[in-house]
């Protein structure tokens, strides 16, 4: 994962040869590292620790998770939804990134703004926008009934469909940007060379462009998938009872029931499975790259 992230970072930064001296770099990174330790690693570590030491070593919380049919089912559903959203964003993002990589000047500026402005808009606002579009008397239903395509308003909101749509929309920029960054760095000579050797456009894409953009795809897939696992606001706003996600359950245990050991156990399980999936994914991607080279 770090390798692809590094490549992603390298593609974002147009290194111009100037470098900060080492002490200054440390000084600049220092506050972030300290902040991360104090505000993130320490409390998360404590929450995870309290799931097994309470006050002595115990696996009771994990046993409780496996004994109730609720938690594993919700975990499974969270990963499934994460997977579906990742695939959907990939399918939608790749053509956009591909187009953006060919643009320049004001066209590129407009396209970039179209991707970035939603990213900077609050998730709350974007989720509410989907409520207005999808609700019973909303935009989409008015159009459908107005055109006579449906007799009664369709149930579009407060179900798995609306959560999938809204999450895909919210997460789309996280997929577009790394793919675009990867596509942009492909030297223009390579597709030209392939063409001059007789490859048609389809072959050029599948044999040259697509393999070279895979690091960007991998970064995007990882980012979108991991972000989707922790989604909280969107499912709460546009989802229904069947879209209960594990983040909501963890929140409930933390703030409503004050059962921090159990919240820690759920969080540990989510973290563990995520790390496992990411490792497996990375292994496969590594194999892919070897096969390609």
């Amino acid at each position, binding site marked *: 994962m770090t390798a692809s992230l590094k490549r992603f970072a390298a593609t974002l930064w147009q290194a111009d040869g100037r470098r900060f001296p080492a002490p200054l770099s440390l000084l600049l990174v220092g506050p972030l590292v300290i902040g991360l330790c104090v505000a993130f690693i320490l409390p998360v570590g404590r929450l995870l620790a309290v799931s097994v030491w309470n006050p002595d070593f115990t696996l009771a919380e994990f046993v409780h998770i496996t004994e109730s049919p609720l938690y594993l089912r919700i975990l499974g559903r969270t990963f499934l939804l994460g997977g579906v959203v990742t695939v959907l964003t990939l399918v939608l993002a790749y053509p956009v990134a591909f187009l953006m990589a060919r643009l320049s000047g004001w066209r590129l500026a407009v396209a970039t703004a179209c991707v970035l402005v939603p990213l900077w808009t609050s998730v709350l606002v974007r989720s509410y926008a989907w409520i207005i579009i999808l609700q*019973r008397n909303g935009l989409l239903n008015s159009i459908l009934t107005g055109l006579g395509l449906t007799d009664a308003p369709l149930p579009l909101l407060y179900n798995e469909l609306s959560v999938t749509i809204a999450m895909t929309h919210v997460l789309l920029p996280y997929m577009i940007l790394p793919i675009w960054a990867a596509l942009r760095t492909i030297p223009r000579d390579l597709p030209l060379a392939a063409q001059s050797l007789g490859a048609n456009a389809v072959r050029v894409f599948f044999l040259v462009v697509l393999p070279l953009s895979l690091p960007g795809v991998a970064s995007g897939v990882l980012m979108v998938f991991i972000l989707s696992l922790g989604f909280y606001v969107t499912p709460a706003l546009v989802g229904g*009872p069947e879209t209960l996600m594990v983040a909501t359950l963890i929140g409930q245990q933390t703030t409503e029931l004050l059962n921090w050991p159990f919240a820690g156990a759920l969080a540990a399980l989510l973290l563990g499975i995520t790390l496992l999936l990411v490792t497996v994914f990375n292994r496969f991607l590594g194999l892919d790259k070897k096969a390609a080279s």
Partner: protein
Amino acid sequence: MLSLRTLTLLSVSLAVALGSAAPSRAQEKELVVVATGGAFEQALRKNFYEPFTEKTGIRIRPVAASNAETWTKVKAMREANAIGWDIVTAWPEDLVAQADSLAKLDCSRLTNLSQAVDGACTERGLLRTMGGVSIVYDAKRFPQGGPQTWADFWDVKRFPGPRAMPNAGAPWWPLMAALMADGVPRDKLFPLDLDRAFKKLDELRPSIAVWWRTGDQSMQLLRSGEVVMAMMWSGSGFVLKDQGLPISVVWNDAVPNIGYWAMLKGGANQDKAYAFLDYYLTRPEAHLTFANAFKYDTSNRNMLALLSPEDRAARGSAPENMAKMAVIDPAWIAANRAAVIERWNRWLSR
């Protein structure tokens, strides 16, 4: 252009300056009062906090926290042994579940208690606001008269149309409604017969279009016509009515929704906290302004007398309406909360 060195120096000195300018903690005469924030707190501030400060010189620092946040932070404060708050907002079940964190109230120190409704001072909480979780319906859809009982709410033939129910962290509300719909008298609901309640909810589930999570969402559902009736906070219903919508709020069989002021154990300002609670009981006009703005009545006994008879009849704190509400058992809820929520999640996420 600035050199990097100068820039670094500048930013460091700026950080130091900002750090030293930060306000020092816990002003001497300050009382920290926790409520749920937003416009509700603005009104508390205007009608109670500010006049109190004017009269006594005791400053109040309002802190906004949801019910869940409140107890999460209280727990963290207790673990760190640093209680930074004095008065918090508590629901009835909190008074039992969080009893360890709350100071016992000495009701005899509240000299104005006679101005409050009977039973306002309990062992660990002083009655603050009163409302209900009620049947709220769109009267336009039911010109012949809308649902008046939970049995009506369940009767999708006589009162057709999609409904909404709460999924807002307190599953005992819909469970109580289900039991009442199934014929259990409103004062004999506890201990909740969960099997029976869930079975009754199964019946209505296909007609429940939305399980709302926030008060704002429940209001939007009726406003947009997404549902024709909802089990929701009475205050939200009255706000819709104020906005000119043809909305009816039913007090009959409503689940009481009561807020208390509670004092944290180990707070440094207990005398000032008592002074504020005592002051809160006075001045019916302020209570009326507050209640008119937020549609939740308060514990002031004399407030109702300021209203016209018609106005009075719609109020949650009117004795005839209070008599029609269901009876809850906070101790049972506190003891069974985790299990009920787990079963609720399981049922709802099927």
